[in-house]
């Protein structure tokens, strides 16, 4: 008989506790962000796909086309193209191809670059209909920005 009434009162108590939880939630502010109209702050640490960094003085990419990133990449998704023009000492970059479908964002390329020439972008709106849309030519991307 005691258990009968204890069950009843404990049950009622737990129901009331539950109801206070939901009513508190009801009066707390909404956390939803209305995405296309509002956007969350993206931290600078966010790892998007690679980007080349521009040299502020010359306006050219900082990249010297040494190809260390290409060699260090475990997925083999970077292809650095360069040529040595006549009368110049250094190689110039003619194309920096990134196959983002293979990239796992491990970041070894950024760490291994001794010239600080590549960085992560903050781009997260990534959607496409074909896989070729994720084959980026980063040099072209750099020139467009």
């Amino acid at each position, binding site marked *: 008989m005691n258990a009968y009434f204890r069950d009843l009162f404990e049950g009622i108590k737990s129901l009331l506790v539950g*109801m206070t*939880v*939901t009513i508190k939630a*009801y009066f707390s*502010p*909404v956390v939803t962000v209305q995405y296309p109209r509002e956007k969350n702050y993206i931290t600078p640490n966010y790892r998007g796909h690679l980007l080349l960094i521009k040299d502020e003085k010359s306006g050219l990419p900082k990249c010297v086309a040494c190809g260390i990133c290409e060699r260090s990449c475990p997925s083999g998704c970077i292809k650095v193209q360069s040529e040595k023009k006549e009368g110049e000492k250094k190689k110039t970059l003619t194309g920096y191809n990134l196959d983002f479908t293979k990239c796992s964002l491990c970041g070894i390329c950024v760490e291994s670059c001794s010239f600080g020439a590549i960085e992560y972008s903050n781009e997260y709106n990534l959607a496409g209909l074909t896989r070729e849309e994720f084959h980026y030519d980063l040099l072209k991307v750099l020139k467009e920005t």
Partner: protein
Amino acid sequence: MDFFINLPPHMLRIPIALLLVITLVFVNALIMVYLERKIAGHMQYRPGPMEVGWHGILQTAIDAVKLMSKQLIIPDDAHRKLFRIAPLLAFVPAVLPFAVMPFSPELQAVDINIGLIFILAMAALNVMAVFAAGWASNNKYGLLGAMRSVSQNIAYEIPILLSLLAVGMVVNSFKLSEIVSYQENIWFVLLQPLAFLIYFVSSVAETNRAPFDLPEAESELTAGFHTEYSGMGFALFFLGEYTEMFVVSSIATAVFLGGWHGFTLPFFEYSSIVWFLVKTYLLMFLMIWFRWTFPRVRFDQLLNFSWKYLIPFSLVNLLITAVVVKL
């Protein structure tokens, strides 16, 4: 025109009331679906519908249009006639109780002697619709849902009747207008708090709403008795459910919360419907609040709760009421 003028006034009163009732039923369903989704959203820290109209206010209207334009699919092995009749069976008994509902001293279509019993009889018919729907679909989930619904409603109809009977004994009448006018000075929720609690809990079960939504239990039975229904068939069940919610809440208002009584407003005979609706919608808010707080009970818990707690308590309450009334 002469024809209408020569009619006795109550003949005209009933069609007009019917028209108003149908309007009320549809508007109520629109409002309730919107409120349910909004309240559910805010209880989970999200805003609910936001896209169609200001704060999603037109969302239910759009949904209604979508449901109306959808095809009604009838499974091959279903019992065709019963399958088509079942949604109507769910909808019509849910609407009929409005004929005797005392919204205000003047706004009551017919005031019959057995008003309360009439409403309960109509509410009980709803079970038959659910059972017909589940059986006619020829679907195992549908049949399981229907069976659950029948045993659940048998278990929960008894405490409803017993708790309302206690009030009937005090007033010595089942006429709804008399029950409401009896509460001019003190509401029955204060005289019969236990009966009110038992009635309200059982009525949540009677309307098949969470935490007693075993007949439809999405996670176990896909959609229970209306698994096979699409388009307007489904919409009628939905409409029936929200109307049923309104009906049980307004019985609770009329019988326990003093019906139309409140601060006196101008044109009291008509305008006191405001108090009636305010109380009814507060109770419905409570039902929505229950739904988004409590997890679904297991079937043995459901039946245990009725037979071990609600029915004994309502019997004791009835006994005490009888003794007090006799003294």
